């Protein structure tokens, strides 16, 4: 906080510059600040706490920080809730750079829940010294003596926990950023740790590093597009603040229109890349496959949520009034995304890749809701993100437990007959798959309904998208049922494949995810109402 820079002083000094001093609303920022603070403490833990107690310290600290942040957030939301308007907005936390309004609170809370579940799965040790999913030493060459030595010496990359926290902070800021610069920086804050986490898998290190490289190069490529788009929009409106851009659109004459549309699309490229929309999706299968499985689950759930939150904000706060210029193209993207995601998942033979393609298809379904241009669309999208995320984290946590000779057995053929030997695990997984397929009585159905319904009402384009969406879901049903049949009705060929017994942490994550998948399918009203009351963006 810079209290010394008073407004009068600045105004007197620089008449030509429109400067306003920074005002921090610490209360509104507190959850993010807690997460960032704990992350920094985590870095210090890395430096000062001896190896023996480092794991416990990091995991405890991280979980405590996340829970504290969540509680603060709940307090924040409850304090500003009124009976009629639902979640009241809090206003710009820092001069409009960070907007804490209904959607922001809702999405931040969800990210924290995802983060808690994600950290629970990441911290799984399975009897080892450090987290089982992560390499003992990131810098050691895969398969080298150094690596074996590190394993014996009991070293671990406990840095993953502070890194995760930094990513979480970035994710929380991403959908609440009020200007494109803050959005860009949050994008990087959430991406950089994820690039690193992707490359730290314990097993199949080469694939993991490859995933990291691909993610990084394509991510940097896409954020360059985002930035160029921001530059064009800045040129268009003279500001990077979303409300300023929105204000410029109606009065902007045709002479600058040439900047607006390319600017919007280039910004969209950066955001659509993060959600994995076709044709910006190609990183998803490779990265999801290569990353450590708990990271994949966390990433799939939380990044998608944060990025869709940012899309919602850009669309509804910034560029909605120009929507006739850009929404047809994005509708095409949505249709392509659903079709390509669904069709490609048919021929996948690796569970993680299959879920990755399914995640692409889901991004398409969610985009349909975004394009409804309606408050119910916003709440539908938010509901979809919550239910998809919870299901995804649980599903990837289960994938991480199915092992053959200590390594994850991700090839589909290895899952044959799993239902006979591990009925509970396979049953839960089958249920989660049904949720992905959108079968009624699972959250997947309610969620699909919540995004398709506003789209149907929005007009002809919406109807076309919904029809394509239904056809695509029909294709994906085949894919998921195939796995279920494989688990229950084929004879196992490989007795070496077994489900390892997880610790209580992973069990909590899986149970919570699966239970919520059921609850949100049978009794979605509460969350639907919450998301509806939190769907008003502050402009």
């Amino acid at each position, binding site marked *: 906080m810079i209290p010394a820079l008073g407004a009068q002083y600045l105004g007197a000094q620089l008449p030509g510059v429109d400067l306003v001093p920074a005002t921090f609303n610490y209360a509104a920022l507190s959850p993010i600040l807690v997460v960032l603070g704990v992350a920094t403490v985590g870095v210090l833990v890395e430096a000062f706490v001896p190896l023996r107690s480092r794991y416990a310290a990091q995991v405890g600290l991280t979980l405590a920080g996340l829970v504290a942040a969540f509680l603060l957030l709940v307090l924040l939301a409850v304090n500003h809730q009124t009976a009629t308007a639902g979640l009241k907005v809090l206003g710009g936390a820092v001069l409009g750079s960070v907007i804490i309004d209904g959607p922001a609170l809702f999405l931040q809370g969800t990210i924290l829940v995802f983060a808690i579940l994600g950290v629970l799965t990441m911290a799984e040790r399975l009897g080892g010294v450090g987290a089982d999913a992560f390499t003992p030493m990131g810098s050691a060459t895969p398969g080298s003596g150094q690596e074996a030595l590190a394993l014996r010496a009991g070293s671990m990359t406990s840095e993953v926990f502070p890194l995760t926290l930094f990513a979480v902070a970035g994710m929380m800021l991403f959908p609440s950023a009020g200007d494109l610069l803050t959005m860009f920086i949050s994008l990087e804050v959430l991406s950089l740790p994820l690039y690193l986490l992707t490359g730290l898998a314990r097993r199949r290190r080469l694939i993991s590093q490859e995933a990291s490289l691909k993610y990084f190069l394509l991510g940097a490529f896409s954020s360059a597009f985002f930035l160029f788009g921001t530059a064009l929009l800045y040129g268009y409106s003279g500001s990077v603040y979303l409300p300023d851009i929105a204000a410029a659109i109606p009065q902007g004459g045709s002479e600058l229109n040439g900047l607006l549309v390319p600017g919007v699309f280039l910004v969209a490229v950066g955001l659509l890349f993060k959600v994995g929309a076709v044709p910006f999706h190609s990183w998803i299968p490779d990265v999801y496959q290569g990353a450590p499985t708990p990271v994949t689950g966390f990433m799939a759930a939380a990044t998608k949520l944060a990025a869709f939150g940012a899309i919602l904000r850009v669309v509804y706060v910034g560029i909605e009034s120009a929507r006739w210029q850009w929404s047809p193209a994005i509708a095409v993207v949505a249709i392509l995304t659903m079709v390509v995601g669904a069709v490609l998942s048919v021929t996948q033979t690796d569970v993680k890749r299959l879920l990755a393609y399914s995640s692409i298809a889901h991004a398409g379904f969610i985009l349909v809701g975004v394009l409804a241009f309606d408050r*119910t669309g916003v709440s539908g999208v938010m509901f979809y993100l919550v239910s998809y995320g919870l299901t995804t984290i649980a599903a990837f946590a289960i994938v991480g437990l199915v092992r053959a000779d200590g390594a994850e057995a991700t090839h589909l053929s290895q899952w044959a007959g799993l239902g006979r030997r591990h009925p509970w695990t396979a049953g839960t997984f089958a249920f989660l798959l049904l949720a992905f397929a959108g079968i009624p009585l699972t959250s997947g159905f309610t969620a699909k309904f919540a995004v398709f319904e506003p789209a149907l009402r929005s007009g002809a384009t919406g109807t076309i998208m919904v029809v394509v969406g239904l056809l695509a879901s029909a294709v994906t049903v085949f894919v998921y049922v195939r796995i279920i049949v494989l688990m229950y009705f084929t004879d196992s060929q490989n007795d070496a494949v077994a489900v390892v017994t997880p610790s209580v942490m992973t069990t909590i994550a899986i149970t919570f995810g699966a239970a919520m998948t059921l609850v949100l399918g049978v009794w979605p009203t509460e969350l639907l109402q919450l998301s509806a009351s939190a769907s008003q963006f502050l402009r």
Partner: protein
Amino acid sequence: MHTLTNGLGAYAGPVALAGEGPVTAVTASGITAYAWLLVALPALGAAILLVGGKRTNAFGPLLATLLSWGSFVVGLLVVISMAGRADADRAAHLHLFSWINVGSFNLDAGQRLDPLSMAFVLLITFVGSLIHVYSLGYMKDDPDKRKFFAYLNLFVAAMLLLVTADSYLLLYVGWEGVGLASWLLIGFWNDNPAYATAANKAFIANRVGDLGLSVAIMIMFFQFGHVDFASVDAGAANASPGALTAMGLFLLLGACGKSAQFPLQSWLGDAMAGPTPVSALIHAATMVTAGVYLVVRSHAIFEGSPTAQLVVVIVGAITLLFGAVVGCAKDDMKKALAASTMSQIGYMMLAAGLGPVGYVFAIFHLLTHGFFKAGMFLGAGSVMHGMNDQVNMRRFGGLRTVMTITWATFMMGWLAILGVPPFAGYWSKDKIIEAAFIGEGWRPWVFGLAALIGAGITAFYMSRLFFMTFHGKKRWTEDIHHPHESPLTMTIPMMVLAFGSVVLGAILGFGQTSLLQSWLNPVFGITAGTEGEPVLPANLLLGLTLVLVLAGAGLAWVRYVRDVVPEIAPHGNLVTQAARNDLYQDAVNEGALMRPGIHLTRSLVFTDTRGIDGAASGLGALVIGASTRLRKLQNGYVRSYALTMLAGVVIILGAVWVMQ
């Protein structure tokens, strides 16, 4: 600087609640307010048995049976209280909870308790509970008995949810629930791969049907904005015939899947792989009739679309003949009964498609059929119980003396299905035949004759089954020494059902305005005497039917009692062979309709990557082909990925530029 704007369109508040539509359904009160117990009791049983695990092994089956009876008692009380009210007040609506609340779409979960649903409730809970009792004996030595009872309870709960739901969506939940329970029970002995495959076949045929149902619901939603019965009924009055036809046809597709009607009939025979009580309950008495319920429940839609109605009648007529022909050639006792079920449901479907004339008869036949068919299936189970699980009728014969009770109860069912007066079938089936002859032009002749001829064939194959099993010489295999009568837990339910087969028809159907008709009156609003006259005099039809039935039964007596029944099936002529092969329904389906489905099944169980190639044909081929081709774009080179991205950017920007 910041203002709370509402530029995204006003937030749509809650709109009219479901169930408060124009149809006069009073809010449930008294015992009716506890109708949720109908579903809750068996659901609780399933939950206890599944969650409780092995601890409930000892008392679980008994508990499940008691809870099922509890459900029956609740149903009975509701019916009694309903009977005490005036016609107009009989339909009650019970609001359960606010279910889905998405923007402008509000749907509450609730139960619609009207005479139609309560008729089903009584059938399901009564037959279901009897079969619970029967299973106590039948499954006594099965190690997984507890799971079996849990699934049975689950089935009863789902089926009751299906018939008491107040909206298509909640009905769909029950619909899927019975599908799940059926799948679990068919594959109950899934250690045997053939049984597991059968379960899968049923699963897939049902999914095709479900797709139809869900599409129908989507159309309804799109058309009316609601999916509860009240609003749909109200909306159907003003909807365009085209939309109603679309809804009707998709509903029919759903009904065909669940009720094993042409062309989705092939799974029912294979479903006999499940334990026999399951076949009796699910695949004869209750679940397979859900399609009929759906069509009757949606009568407002079908009445608005003569085309859809005609298709229903055609499907019913085809299936009733189809099932009858197949039934003539089957040597597997259960499969013959399954074919008969298919055929009888064809009768109901036909009746339901005839319009207001036929609804009551469809439901009437459904109820009587539920009794006598369940009774016969239990009889079949009893025979299998005594004969080391044999099902080949050519190795039965002369069981009358050793299984007297089974023989006697089975005979009641046999007489009932034949339509011999005064047994139950006489009252219901002959009415359908009569109704089929009502109308103008070619229709009464085609459909009436189909129903009439069907009755004759039915008499033949059912008598064949009865005689081959219980009469004639013993043709038992060597390993069977002492066939024995089943224990009381099994025979008592059989006796109860046999009693029903005898008297139920007369109770419900006697008189000018029968009991059932006046009971269902508030639902359909039919008054007696409005149905018109058949093209042939009713008495002549009755006589013709009886003659055909006698002829059929006589032929069977000549061939299977007087003549010697060969232990190995004779080669037979082309027709027999075709019938034996289910009239090549699998082949036909595979070639024309089910081909994608079959290939799906195959690829569903693939275990290696090459399995995918095997799936490459039919509809799936399109998707899989596209998938294989698209896959090549994912070549692993990061530069290619970047290329895709840049191409996307350039194409979008270029396209937008061109548009402007």
